[in-house]
């Protein structure tokens, strides 16, 4: 399931490689929801024949690739409101059923972006807390607490250099203790009940990362 040997460990992962890495870790046959933005790119790297079925919270299983040109249908969009296509075996359903799939624990994995993730798996990804910001939550809170596994895909450091994997989130929370893995350009982190395991690192040593994050990694 892991592709740890497939990438150059001496430098941080690029966006495509990061999406490829997450895609390789999605168990075959999973029902998968991809968050808006970067997580959506994971779909581009799923192996044909993996049997992974994509869910979109606006009411569809079996989401296909983005639609272009004459294939665009205004009635067929994903949660990011991007025109998409349907795959054979796709199904449509209304919003209450769609969120029953999420809240009810039927989705195997979701991949979300984040502003911050805490060592305990708290997720902050909907609101910066800025007083002039217009808050928008969408389906993020339902996904965070509903999917069996919540993977976060993000850069490890913000533009000002501060870590986004933190002892305690300072941004408003989306969900409590819900994230199980964090995929970043600098490393993959598995969050367990007994601490954070640095599964692999990219462009930094485990010790350097531990210093930057002010953490003692648990041995994996």
């Amino acid at each position: 399931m892991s592709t740890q040997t497939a990438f150059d460990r001496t430098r941080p992962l690029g966006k495509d490689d990061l999406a490829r890495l997450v895609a390789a870790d999605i168990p075959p046959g999973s029902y998968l929801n991809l968050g808006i933005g970067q997580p959506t790119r994971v779909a581009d790297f799923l192996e044909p024949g993996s049997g992974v079925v994509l869910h979109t919270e606006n009411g569809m299983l079996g989401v296909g690739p983005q639609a272009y040109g004459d294939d665009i249908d205004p009635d067929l969009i994903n949660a990011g409101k991007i025109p998409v296509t349907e795959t054979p075996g796709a199904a449509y359903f209304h919003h209450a059923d769609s969120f029953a799939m999420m809240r009810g624990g039927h989705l195997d994995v979701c991949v979300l972006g984040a502003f911050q993730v805490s060592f305990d798996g708290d997720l902050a990804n909907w609101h910066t807390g800025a007083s002039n910001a217009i808050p928008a939550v969408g389906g993020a809170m339902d996904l965070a607490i509903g999917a069996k596994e919540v993977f976060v895909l993000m850069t490890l450091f913000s533009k000002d250099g501060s870590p986004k994997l933190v002892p305690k989130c300072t941004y408003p929370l989306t969900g409590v203790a819900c994230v199980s893995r964090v995929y970043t350009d600098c490393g993959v982190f598995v969050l367990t009940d007994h601490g954070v395991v640095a599964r692999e690192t990219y462009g930094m040593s485990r010790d350097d990362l531990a210093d930057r994050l002010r953490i003692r990694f648990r041995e994996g």
Partner: protein
Amino acid sequence: MATVVRDADEAVAGIVDGSTVLIGGFGTAGQPIELIDALIRGGAKDLIVVNNNAGNGRVGLAALLANGQVRKIVCSFPRQADSYVFDELYRSGKVELELVPQGNLAERMRAAGAGIGAFFSPTGVGTPLAEGKESRTIDGRDYLLEYPIEGDVALIKAFRTDTLGNLVYRKTARNFGPVMATAAKITAVQVSEVVQPGGIDPEVVITPGIFVDRIVKIVGVSPLPETGAAG
């Protein structure tokens, strides 16, 4: 019993000031643009609007907002690339916002339609949206008490109906339509096709006609604003 009405204005007749209006659609997919246009012509004010978003571009829900008819919007995702009409009204304090996680929004309307007094949801526990809500621990898990959202009227869009109001939707334009249809005192639906009873296979009906009051056939294609980002 559902009635096929003459036009969109008749479909929205009787919506009074202060009404709670459930409006279908996710972005522009499934948004009943022509019914909203009729609501604008009707001029009802101080409306509470329930929708997933807060308008796109300058048409439909955005036009209703721009016309100053909305006092409060209940939604999950107001902020989009093309939600500038809402953004300006919100920042200048001219419209109130109740932000609801998308699944709770759907389930609160489902509860209203199903006669459920309230329900416990795990969504939002430990977040700022839990503030002021009753909580309970059930089998070791924390939940928040969520109340139903009932509409005075629901305005939705479906693809096809028979004259009894048995609705079939199209692709992801279904979204909130079936839930909203159950949750309002009056449900008005705009469709592309109206057929006689028997013209729809009973096995494929999504919204049974018992939930539908007014049907209007809209000929032609709705104007679609540019596609907004994020949802």
